[in-house]
Every structure is written in C-alpha cells, then in structure tokens.
C-alpha cells in the first residue's frame, strides 16, 4: 500500500530507519527514537505522505529484548488513503529511561493516547502538556500492561471488607482464582525473559 512512503523515508532519513517490513499489507518502519518527532513531522507535512490522522499510538513490552519497549504509531492519510506504521524502541532491560518526544504538536489525539501509553507502559513523552495517568488512579503503583506486572495484583482504593465484617466468606469461589480452574498456568514472563538471556 505505502511502499512509496517507506522508500521516501529511506531516502530522506537513511540510517535513522532501523528496519522495515510489511505484514498483511501494512508497511512498517522501525526508526531511531531520537528521530521520532522529526520523522513524524515529515510524515505529516510532506505532500507525498500527508498523514493527517494518527489512528493509534501505543506500546508493546518485549521483556526478553533490549531496548525493552516498542512504541507503535499507526498513521492514516485521509487525502491519499494510505497507511503506515512507525515503531521505535526505548528503555533498558528494566524498561527504565523509556523516553521519546511527544507528537501532540502534530496530532491533537496524541494527547490522550500518549497519556494512556505512559499510564500502561511507563513511557515518558518529552514535551507533553499534561502527562499524567488517564485510566488508572494517581495512587496506582507501576504500569499494569508491562509483562512483569502480575495481572491479578490489585491495588484497592477502598480496603476490602474482611470475612468477619461481612459475616460470611466473601472470597471469590472456584472456578475463579489465579488460574480460573484451568489446567494450564499463566505465562511467567519474568522467567521467560531470564531464559532468553
């Protein structure tokens, strides 16, 4: 669909384009995190690209990789009718120091998308006007969509009632619980990351 855009990016930015691939017709460019804003600006403003719309911006956690987090942006051009996906890799093995420039100045929708990305993955966006949690509450510790966050670890705002207060057992009964009665266990992502290294 947008091989031309990928070619254009390669010509213009050369070594800053780390790798490219296409899957199911979606062309993807993995770029240097330091060039993120520059490349995004080019993609929006260049008449041959004209990506007026930021469809989505999120991240993926790959615990066995370094840099660990991958920020993904999906762009769509309303006038040209083509799409492109750009990715960049940030953060060390622990996901610390994940920081890239904000694209709020280009697409207004990036404001909330980047806040969500910060909330769920702990990616910091330099220059974001209002970078705070959007889904979780301010008291929440950690970033829940990172693979090493235990999925069932809740951080209640209201202390749970005890069985004595309730006058009965208010535990979640089977088939709920850690494995919901299933015969297979949850993926231990921390262990998988250790095995990979």
């Amino acid at each position: 669909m947008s091989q031309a855009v990928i070619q254009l990016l390669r010509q213009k930015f050369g070594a800053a384009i780390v790798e490219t691939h296409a899957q199911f017709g979606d062309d993807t460019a993995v770029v240097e995190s330091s060039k993120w804003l520059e490349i995004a600006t080019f993609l929006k403003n260049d008449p041959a690209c004209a990506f007026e719309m930021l469809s989505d911006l999120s991240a993926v956690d790959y615990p066995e990789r370094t840099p660990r987090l991958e920020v993904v942006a999906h762009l769509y051009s309303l006038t040209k009718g083509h799409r492109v996906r750009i990715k960049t890799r940030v953060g060390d093995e622990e996901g610390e120091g994940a920081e890239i420039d904000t694209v709020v100045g280009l697409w207004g929708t990036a404001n909330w998308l980047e806040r969500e990305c910060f909330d769920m993955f702990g990616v910091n966006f330099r220059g974001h006007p209002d970078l705070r949690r959007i889904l979780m509450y301010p008291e929440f510790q950690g970033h829940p969509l990172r693979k090493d966050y235990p999925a069932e670890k809740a951080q209640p705002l209201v202390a749970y009632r005890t069985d004595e207060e309730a006058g009965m057992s208010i535990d979640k009964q089977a088939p709920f619980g850690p494995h919901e009665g299933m015969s297979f266990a949850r993926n231990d992502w921390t262990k998988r990351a250790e095995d990979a290294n």
Partner: protein
Amino acid sequence: MNAPLKSVTLDGNETGFATTKLDALLGWARKWSLFKYPFVTACCGMEFMALTSPRFDGTARFGAEAPRFSPRQSDLLWVVGTISQRQAPVLKRIYEQMMEPKWVLAFGTCASSGGFYDNYTTVPGIDKVIPCDVYIPGCPPRPEAVIDGLMLLQDKIASGDRRPAIVKPRFDPVQGAQDGLVQIRKKGLLEGGDK
C-alpha cells in the same frame, strides 16, 4: 423469623379489625415500596432496561419502579455492571449516603464476583466494599432471574432478617413432581415406548 401476613377477605357489611405486629407491617410496607438507586456501569444496563420495560415489567409490578437519583431518597441500591477499583470509593460513598433501612442488589456476575475480570482493574465482587443482600448470577442475567432475585429480596425484607446472603428455601418443581405437573423424561424414550 416472623410468620407471613394472613390475608382476610371482607365481604358485605362486615366490620372489624385486624391485628398484626408493627415489624411485620413495616416489612410489608417496605417490600412493596422499594425506591431504587440504579448504579449502572456496564453492559448489564441493557438487560436492566429490558427488565424495566413493558415486556417484563419487572420492577413496577413489585412496587420498585420509581428510581431516585439521590441516594438519600432511595433504599435499594442496584449495582448493575462491573465495578472498577477506581469506582469503588464512589460506590462506597453512595452506599453510605443512603438512609437506613437499605438494601443492595448485585446485578450480574461482575457485580457479584468480578466475573472474568480477574485482574488489576476490577473489584472482585461489590461485597468486598459494601454489604450485599442479593446476588443475581448471569452475564447478563435473564430478566426472569432478576425478578426472582427481587422477589427473594422482598421475602428477606418481609422476614426482617438483616444477615447477609440469606436465601429462603426454594420450591423446586422437579422435586414436587408427584403432582404430575412436571415430568422429567429423557429425549428419545417416548418414541420407543416406556422402555
């Protein structure tokens, strides 16, 4: 537990008086005039609408139709849908603002136990935060199930029992099959005769 009220029919010009216990009278009055506070947070709300609209008419028939959007004027809190950790303080505050006597009804699996949201976002059952009187299972529950739950709550109110999760003994039509109304048969046995 109080005995249920006996009904008496007066015909003609009879006069007289009836005696009852104040608790029983209050229980009877309360169970037929529930003012609900709908705390609707998720997809169960659709089923709640089906319940209250004409086909099932599941609340007006039981004197529980009028919603009050102020917790101070309502005595039945319907928790309809998933309660996230972020909402839990709001729910607790709403409950605390309600006047005694008050009852809570957990509508659907999420409100009852958190459902399949076994993760960091969801309160695993509203009884972790506030007392709950009736749990209605289902994802979402059928309106019949909700009506059943509402009737259970009415029985509980009439009995004056404030302990949590008291369920009255239920009549199971299968167990009472000796009257011949319900017969359990395996499919295929009828065509091949009685054997």
